[in-house]
């Protein structure tokens, strides 16, 4: 999670719809009662600001930064970060470590050491990004350095089981040399909390989308909330994909097609395999999952990208509707995910 760099005011797009930027991504707010839009906006912004102060890896004054700086000793934390860490560890337990919050050091070494908006700009402008991985790997031939880099990345993921979270303190201790990154779970969790805050203050139905992670609360519109799943959350709703309607819970989409950059000539992406510390290289380009909460949906989508060929069976086992797009562009569905009208879908995964 990046810091709140922008103080951009919420852009009101219609009577019940507002959008603005945060964490290098787009926030969308929809409410069923137009008169609730303004107070709902305020409630969402307050909620996200609080989460940013607690959980941002990029803010030097955040609670998480204090935890990472104090690796090796127990650090006292607040209840909000405690909740976020508990969710991250739950995600790790549910996925056998496919979603692991201790990948922070590996992300930094891969070049993701700053707010995404800054990294994306640097990459777009062809500026040489900080290349700590290359520096650590040392001077060597390309092949040898690549192998050394991979080994370094793998060693920097200490494993979620080494995180000691004491909810009674609350305190948390992580091993020296470790850094926590909550990017895999906190954004979706923030969407859940923000949607509920909006619904509570507005006494209406609410939908909050943060970077494509969609959470709902309260009573949905008569036809449900219309959601278009596609590769990039910034795409138009007419981009290749599928439009579906949800009544409750959350929907998340994870994709390796976005948030990519180059580090010393190597193509990197933000979804790492905790077992190697390197970007996932699997069967899927984009995975969408619907679940009872956006956090649960996001746990499933991230793990699916890591699990690659095992993803469809695992998603079926945990019983969530899912849509998977292969790297070749083929669309597969799992469980009760609806067929795309006018287009037959494959059920047999590659």
């Amino acid at each position, binding site marked *: 999670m990046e810091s709140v760099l922008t103080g951009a005011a919420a852009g009101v797009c219609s009577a019940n719809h507002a959008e603005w930027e945060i964490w290098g991504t787009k926030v969308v707010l929809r409410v069923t009662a137009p008169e609730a839009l303004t107070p709902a906006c305020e409630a969402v912004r307050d909620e996200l600001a609080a989460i940013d102060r607690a959980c941002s890896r990029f803010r030097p004054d955040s609670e998480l930064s204090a935890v990472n700086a104090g690796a090796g000793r127990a650090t006292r934390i607040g209840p909000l970060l405690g909740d976020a860490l508990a969710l991250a560890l739950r995600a790790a337990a549910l996925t056998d470590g496919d979603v692991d919050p201790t990948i922070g050091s590996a992300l930094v070494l891969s070049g993701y050491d700053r707010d995404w908006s800054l990294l994306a700009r640097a990459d777009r402008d062809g500026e040489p990004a900080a290349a700590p991985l290359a520096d650590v790997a040392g001077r060597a031939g390309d092949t040898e350095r690549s192998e050394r880099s991979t080994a370094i990345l793998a060693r920097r993921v200490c494993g979620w089981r080494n995180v000691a979270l004491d909810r009674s303190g609350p305190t948390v201790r992580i091993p020296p040399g470790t850094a926590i990154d909550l990017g895999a779970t906190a954004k979706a969790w923030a969407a859940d909390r923000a949607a509920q805050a909006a619904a509570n203050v507005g006494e209406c139905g609410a939908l909050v989308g943060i970077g494509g992670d969609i959470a709902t609360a309260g009573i949905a519109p008569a036809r449900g909330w219309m959601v278009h799943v596609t590769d990039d959350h*910034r795409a138009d709703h007419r981009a290749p994909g599928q439009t579906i309607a949800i009544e409750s819970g959350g929907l998340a989409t994870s994709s390796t097609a976005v948030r990519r950059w180059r580090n010393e000539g190597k193509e990197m992406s933000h979804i790492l395999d905790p077992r190697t510390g390197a970007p996932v290289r699997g069967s899927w380009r984009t995975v969408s999952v619907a679940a009872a909460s956006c956090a649960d949906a996001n746990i499933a989508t991230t793990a699916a990208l890591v699990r690659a060929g095992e993803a469809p069976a695992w998603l079926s086992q945990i019983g969530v509707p899912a849509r998977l797009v292969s790297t070749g562009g083929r669309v597969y569905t799992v469980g009760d995910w609806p067929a795309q009208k006018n287009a037959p879908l494959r059920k047999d995964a590659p």
Partner: protein
Amino acid sequence: MNRLGRVNRWLIAGSVALTGVFTEAAASAFPGRSSSAKQAQGNASAGATTTRTSTGSANPVQAPAKAPEAVSEPSASEPSAGEASSTESVQPAESSSAAPTEETPVVSGGS
């Protein structure tokens, strides 16, 4: 009286012996929880490291109360009638000049 005391001692000894026999028989028929729990833990530990399955201790991922429903719409990637499968291409996003309305879908995609 002496004979009675001797009989009593034999009865007590016999009862103790029989109790031991019955205990052994019961242990064999019903192995109990401690040893099998250790065995299960051992298997689970081995399983957690060798097979990638979800653990049961954390609250599992919950499915939605109602599954998503399809919405009829014209799609840029809609295949022709002769195509056998659906293929989704990566295309640049089209910008929309019109302000989103209540009916405009919210986009869920990677970020």
